[in-house]
């Protein structure tokens, strides 16, 4: 009979940590603290509820920072946005803040823009300067929108006007008013050629496609300032089109790349839907113009960060590829 060499150590195998704290993400294949995931979702949802922004451009980098592979982070983030936007859209729909007619046009424009954006980025990638074009475009667009919004909101605040300045008159005397296929959008109280919202949304779709974000923080100001929609209807209608866009994207990511992590999305969505409700309630404490100033400030901060990132020496010469896991 073989003898047994037995050796004792003071080191022992400890009990596993609190099993409800760390969660294994099945598709990402890594374990992450559950409360960190819910907290990240809640933060993003709070901004979403408060200001109508804060999806892809914020959440995907946070998830990547937590160690989620970029492809899984982007796809699961899209799935979580489906939950947040459906929660928000339901509330807005009840309040009559969703313009289904305009939302459909915007949705079609967004889809067309996304398709064009994918092709444009392919061309720029072939030319080898895609990223600089994208970043510069983004900086310019964000700078223009943020600055205009900031100045306009400050002027509104100084005037002390409580109601948003929204022109519902038909732009008959303008170039836009002479465009064909004029269409009334009663819910929004505006009239435009169908091409106006379609083209504007297509442009946002192109930006969203090349930057890999939802584009809400461009879309909402655009609807308010260019289409002259009321702020609340703009947010509700934006949510409508985001819900359909992200639902389609989630399905495509799941079927083609297999990168949707349902548990990750649910954890984030649990935080973000709750955070959105809290943000909405906090938002009631502020006037629309005050919220616009905050939104404009966030847009400008994102723009400045992107501009600094373009010129500052990076900490690392290598960065993760969104199309490759690890």
């Amino acid at each position: 009979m073989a003898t047994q060499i037995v050796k004792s150590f003071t080191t022992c195998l400890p009990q596993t940590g609190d099993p409800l704290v760390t969660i294994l993400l099945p598709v990402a294949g890594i374990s992450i603290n559950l409360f960190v995931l819910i907290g990240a979702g809640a933060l993003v949802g709070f901004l979403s509820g408060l200001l109508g922004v804060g999806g892809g451009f914020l959440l995907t980098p946070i998830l990547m920072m937590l160690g989620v592979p970029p492809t899984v982070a982007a796809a699961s983030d899209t799935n979580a946005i489906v939950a947040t936007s459906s929660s928000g859209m339901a509330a807005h729909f009840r309040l009559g803040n969703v313009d289904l007619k305009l939302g459909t046009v915007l949705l079609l424009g967004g889809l067309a823009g996304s398709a064009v954006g994918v092709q444009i980025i392919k061309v720029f990638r072939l030319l080898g300067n895609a990223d600089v074009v994208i970043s510069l475009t983004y900086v310019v667009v964000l700078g223009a929108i943020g600055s205009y919004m900031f100045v306009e909101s400050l002027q509104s605040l100084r005037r002390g006007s409580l109601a948003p300045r929204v022109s519902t008159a038909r732009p008959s005397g303008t170039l836009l008013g002479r465009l064909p296929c004029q269409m009334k959008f009663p819910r929004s109280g505006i009239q435009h050629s169908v091409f106006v919202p379609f083209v504007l949304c297509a442009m946002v779709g192109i930006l969203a496609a090349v930057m890999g974000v939802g584009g809400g923080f461009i879309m909402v100001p655009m609807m308010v300032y260019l289409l002259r929609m009321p702020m609340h209807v703009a947010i509700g209608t934006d949510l409508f089109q985001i819900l359909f866009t992200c639902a389609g994207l989630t399905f495509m990511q799941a079927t083609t790349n297999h990168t949707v992590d349902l548990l990750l999305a649910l954890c984030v969505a649990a935080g973000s839907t709750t955070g959105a409700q809290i943000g909405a309630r906090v938002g009631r404490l502020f006037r629309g113009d005050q919220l616009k100033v905050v939104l404009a400030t966030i847009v400008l901060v994102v723009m400045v960060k992107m501009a600094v990132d373009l010129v500052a020496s990076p900490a690392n010469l290598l960065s993760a590829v969104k199309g490759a896991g690890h």
Partner: protein
Amino acid sequence: MVALGLPASGRAQSPQVTVDPPQLRVETFSGQQHVLITVRVDPDATPVVVIRRPDAEAVFNRKVRVGPIWLNSGRVHITGVPALLLCFSPVPVDALLQRADIDRYLLDARAVRQALHVEPAEFDAPAIRDSYLALRQEDESYRFADRGSDAFEAGEEPGWYALRLAWPTRAPTAMYAVSVYECREGRVVSTATVPFEVARTGLAAWLAAQATDHAPLYGAVAVAVAISLGFGIDFLVTFFRRRGARHGRQPSKRSAGHLGAH
């Protein structure tokens, strides 16, 4: 205090390595997992324990400066080094081994830096190699026992060591190899390796299988669940708000006025 044993007849062949548990089965709510690696080397030798995940190509964007702007220009493919490399030793490796053996077994950052292969070759530069190492150490895929490992504990009997390791939560489920290098007089005199599998089980394994085997159904369910969650939360909030209103507080029409977009 735990008693661990290795079968032996007379003088056991060294080195020896055991991993407890031999297979890490990770469930959805397993929590932080720990492994205990026990090694035995000759009493006059010192062990170096290495956990590796097989080599895999890593792809990154390369940043270059064009005028005042930094931009991604081209993809860098890195091969020839493990996807995960965790090294542990009771004393610093360079105090144990000559450079040739450290390089041969990839036991420190310098060795890995030399061994990695960068493609395309024109992108190969010291800064790229340093950047790769920094990224891997940042995401905890690489860990080197440059200053020795506190987690190592020498046993009462010479030649016995135990290494307690909180399994890195970012390390993906995969097959790993745990090796022990018996070091004496500046050289690796013997090695032993055991496989170590980290596998999903339970709900996590089932969901991962569905995501690949039944992708369209999985995608549709993911969308349906997300929509249900969104509408469910909205329903609950509305329900409690109305209930609150019945108790004297008026629901506000502005309450959902800022629910956001993305």
